[in-house]
C-alpha cells in the first residue's frame, strides 16, 4: 500500500477506527491493538489498549501472542483480525466467537477454501503455546493449528448462522485491501444501509418513525437524518451502548437511536 493501512481514511473515519469499533461491538469486551514500536495510530476510543510488538519480521504469530497475553486474565476467547477488513461485520465477529466451545481452542474460518487466521477466535491461554513456537522459529499459524484443537468453519458453516446470513451472505467481512486499487474499489462501495430513529423532542418536525439511510458512522447517520449531533444528543446502536462518539462505525442492518442527552429524570 505504501502507507499504514491503519490510518487510511474510511467514510469520515479510518480503517482502524472502524475495525476497532466493529470488533468491540461483536465481542462486547475489551479491545487490544498491537502495533509496531512508535507506529502512529489514528484516534481511537480511550478504552482501547495499545500494545507494542517490538520484534519485527516474526509474522502474524508474534502480534497474536502479544494480543493474547494482554487478554489472558480478562477474556475466555479473543477475536483476532487485521486492520484492513473494511467490510467486517459485527455478525461475523459474533458468529466466530460464539462458535468457541469447551472442545476447541481456535475457531478458524475457512472461506473459499482459504484459512483465515486473522479473522479467527483464539483462547488467550494459547499465548504460551505461541511463545514456544516463536522461540523455536516456527512462525506460521499452521504450526499453531497443528498443536491445538481447531474448529474449522466453512462458508456454509458460517452462513448457517441466521444473523450472519442476513447481514453478510457473501462473507464480504473477509475482504482485505492489500493494494491501492483494492482500497479505492472498497471505498467506492456505498456506505451501509442503516435504520435511524429519533425520540422525544428530536422526533418533532417530521423526524418521527424509522428511516433508512446510508451511513458508515453515527455522525453520518445523524447528518443523513438532518440532526445536529451536539452535546444535547446521544446515540445508541441496536439498543446497546449509549455514545457521543460520532466516529462509532455502523454496519448494514444497524438501528441507530438518537435521544436527548438528558434522558431520564
Amino acid at each position, binding site marked *: 500500500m505504501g502507507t499504514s493501512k491503519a490510518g487510511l481514511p474510511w467514510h469520515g473515519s479510518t480503517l482502524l477506527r472502524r475495525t476497532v469499533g466493529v470488533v468491540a461491538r461483536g465481542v462486547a469486551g475489551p479491545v487490544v491493538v498491537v502495533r509496531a514500536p512508535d507506529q502512529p495510530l489514528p484516534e481511537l476510543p480511550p478504552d482501547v489498549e495499545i500494545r507494542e510488538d517490538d520484534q519485527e519480521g516474526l509474522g502474524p504469530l508474534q502480534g497474536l501472542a502479544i494480543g493474547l497475553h494482554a487478554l489472558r486474565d480478562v477474556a475466555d476467547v479473543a477475536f483476532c483480525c487485521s486492520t484492513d477488513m473494511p467490510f467486517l461485520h459485527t455478525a461475523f465477529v459474533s458468529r466466530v466467537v460464539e462458535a468457541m466451545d469447551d472442545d476447541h481452542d481456535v475457531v478458524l474460518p475457512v472461506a473459499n477454501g482459504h484459512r483465515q487466521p486473522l479473522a479467527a477466535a483464539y483462547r488467550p491461554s494459547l499465548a504460551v503455546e505461541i511463545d514456544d513456537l516463536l522461540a523455536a522459529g516456527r512462525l506460521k499459524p499452521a504450526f499453531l493449528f497443528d498443536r491445538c484443537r481447531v474448529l474449522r468453519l466453512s462458508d456454509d458453516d458460517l452462513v448457517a448462522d441466521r444473523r450472519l446470513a442476513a447481514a453478510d451472505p457473501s462473507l464480504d467481512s473477509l475482504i482485505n485491501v492489500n493494494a491501492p486499487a483494492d482500497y479505492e474499489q472498497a471505498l467506492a462501495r456505498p456506505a451501509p444501509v442503516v435504520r435511524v430513529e429519533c425520540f*422525544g423532542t428530536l422526533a418533532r418536525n417530521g423526524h418521527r418513525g424509522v428511516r433508512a439511510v446510508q451511513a458508515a458512522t453515527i455522525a453520518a447517520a445523524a447528518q443523513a437524518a438532518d440532526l445536529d449531533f451536539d452535546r444535547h444528543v446521544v446515540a*445508541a446502536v441496536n*439498543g446497546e451502548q*449509549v455514545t457521543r462518539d460520532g466516529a462509532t462505525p455502523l454496519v448494514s442492518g444497524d438501528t441507530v437511536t438518537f*435521544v*436527548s*442527552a*438528558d434522558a*431520564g429524570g
Partner: protein
Amino acid sequence: MTAEPMTDAPGGYFGRALVVDVGTGRATVVKLSDRVLRDHLGGVGLGAWLLTELAPVGVDPLAPEAPLAFCFSPLVGTPLTTSAKFAVVAKSPLTGLLTDALASSHFAISGKLTGNDAIVVRGACTRPSILLVDGAGARVEPADDVWGHSAAEAEAALKKRLGAGWRIAAIGTAGERGVRYATVSHDGRHAGRGGLGAVMGSKKLKAVAVRAATKVAPADRDAVLAASRDLRSRSLGKATAKYRELGTLANLLAFNALSTLPTRNFTAATFEQAPRLAAEDISDLRKVARNSCASCSIGCEHIYAAKGGKKARVEYENVFALGPMCGVSDPDDVLAASARCDELGLDTISAGGTIAWAMECAERGLLDAPWLRFGDGAALLRALDEIGAGTGIGPLLAEGSRRAAERVGAGSADFAPHVKGMEMPGYEPRTMHAMALGLAVNARGADHNRSGAYEADLSGDLDRLDGGQAHVAAAVETEDRAAVMDSMILCKFLRGVFTEPFDEWAALLCPVTGWDVDGAELRATARRIVALKRAYNLREGWTAADDWLPERLLSEPVQVGSGREASLTPQRLRRMIDGYYAARGLDTQGRPVPSGDGAGSGAGQ
C-alpha cells in the same frame, strides 16, 4: 405564638422551625443557628437534621411521637426559577428509614412566609383535623367534613372555608387508611415517596394550611434579581426543551429503545407495546394543557385527557409504573389509573410496583386473585380501588411489596421490586450499572431523585453494561448533586443548564444568604447531608444488607434490543458497593466513621 424572625438569621432564612404538637395544640420554636442552616441549607438537608434532632430513636413512623417536617429553603420566595419547592421529611412507614419527598408551588412560598424555615408536626389529633399556620401562630381545627374526601376535594373545600390566601397540603383516603405509600399533595402535586401521607393520616391530620404573613429578605436583592434573570434565560434553552415540549414521558420510547424500560415486573427491559403510550403521539392526541409550578419558567407539567372526561397529570414514572411495569398498554387504562392514584393519594411508583408483583404472584398461583393478570387494565384499576378501599387484596397490597412478599412467602420476595422496602422506579439496573449502584445504596431506598446515576449511564461517557470504578464515581457525584439541589431547593430539570454546578449553585446562594459560600463548601455540604441521612438510618436499624438489589435483578439476565443478554452479577454489585463505601469514607459495613463533621450542634428549643 407569632412568627418573630430571629434577629441573626442569614438572608433568605427566618432562623427558626415551628414545632407543633397537634394533640395538644402547643407550639414551640427550634432556633436554627447560622451554622445549622449553612451546614444543611434547607429542604431535605434541613429535614434530615430536624429528624435527627427531634425524632425519638426507634420511633414507630405511625406513632404520635413521630415528627413530620415540612421544610422550606433559602431560595423559596425569591424570583429564582423553580425555587418554589418544599420537602416533606419523616421516618417512612414503608422503609422504616428516612424519607424525604419534594413538592412544588404556592404552599412552599406561603409556608415559608409564615415566618418559618420549617414546620414540624408531632402528636396526634383525637379526631380528623387540620393544622393552620400563619402570622398569628399555629392552631388545630376539626375537619370531620373533609375526612374521607380526596386530597383535591379537601383542598377545595378548605380553601372555601378558610378564604383567600391559604395554601393547603392534604392527604387522600389512602393516607387516612394508612397505606404505606400514601402521598401528601398540594395543588395536585405530590410529595410522593415513602408514605408521608400515612404518617400524616396516623395523626388524624387531613391537611396543613399555611398563609403568608411576612416577606423574605435576601442579603443582596439586586444581585438576586440579576441572577434570577440570568437563570430564567438559561432555563429556556435546549437543555430543558424535553420537559417543556413533551414532559418526562418523553423518556418512555427512548428508554424502550435503550432497553432500560422495566416491563412486567422486571421480566423484560423492553415493552413491545410501548409506542401506544408514547408522549410523541399522545401529546398530540390528548394533551389539554401545560402548566408550571409557581416561580418556574420551564413548565414541565403536561395534562392529558383521560377516559370519562377526567384529566391526568402525566409523568414518565406514572406511565412506566402503571403501564409497562404491569404490562398494560391501553392509554385509557394507564391514564385512568394515574388519575385514580391522584384521587386516592397514592405514590404511583409504589402502587404500580406492588401491583406488578401481585400480578406475577397471581399468575404463579401464589395469590388467590385469578382476575389479576399482567396486561389487564381493568384488573389494574380494580387493584387500585381495593387498595384505596381496604377491601379484597387491598390491605395486603397497601403494605407495599416487601411486607406483602413476607406474608405471601413461597419465594415471592425474590421478585418483589424494592430496595429497603421502596418500590423501584423506571430504570433497569441490569442495563444501567451506575444506576444499579445508586438504587442500592441510596438512603431513601430505590429512588431516582436522590440518586441520579442514570445520567452517567445515559451520558455515553461510560459502559453502562460493565459497572466498575467509573460508575462508583458517577453514583457519588450525582448523589452529591442531588443532595444540594434538594436542599437549596432547585428543580432537577434545570441540571442541564449548569456546566459547573457546585460553583454556579454557590453563586446563587451567596446573594440570597450573604454567605461567602463557594463550590468546594457546597460539595462538603452535599457529603454532610448524604452522611447525615445514612447516620439517621443506621440509628433506626439499617444494616449493610439493606444496600442491595432484588434477587431477580442479580440472577436473571435481561435481553437488550440487539438480542444480547445483559446481566448484573452479585459480585459486580458487591464490588461497586465496596467502592462506594470507600469513596464515601464509610467502613466496610457502610457505616459512617465519626469525623465531627455532621449534625449535632445548634438546636435550642
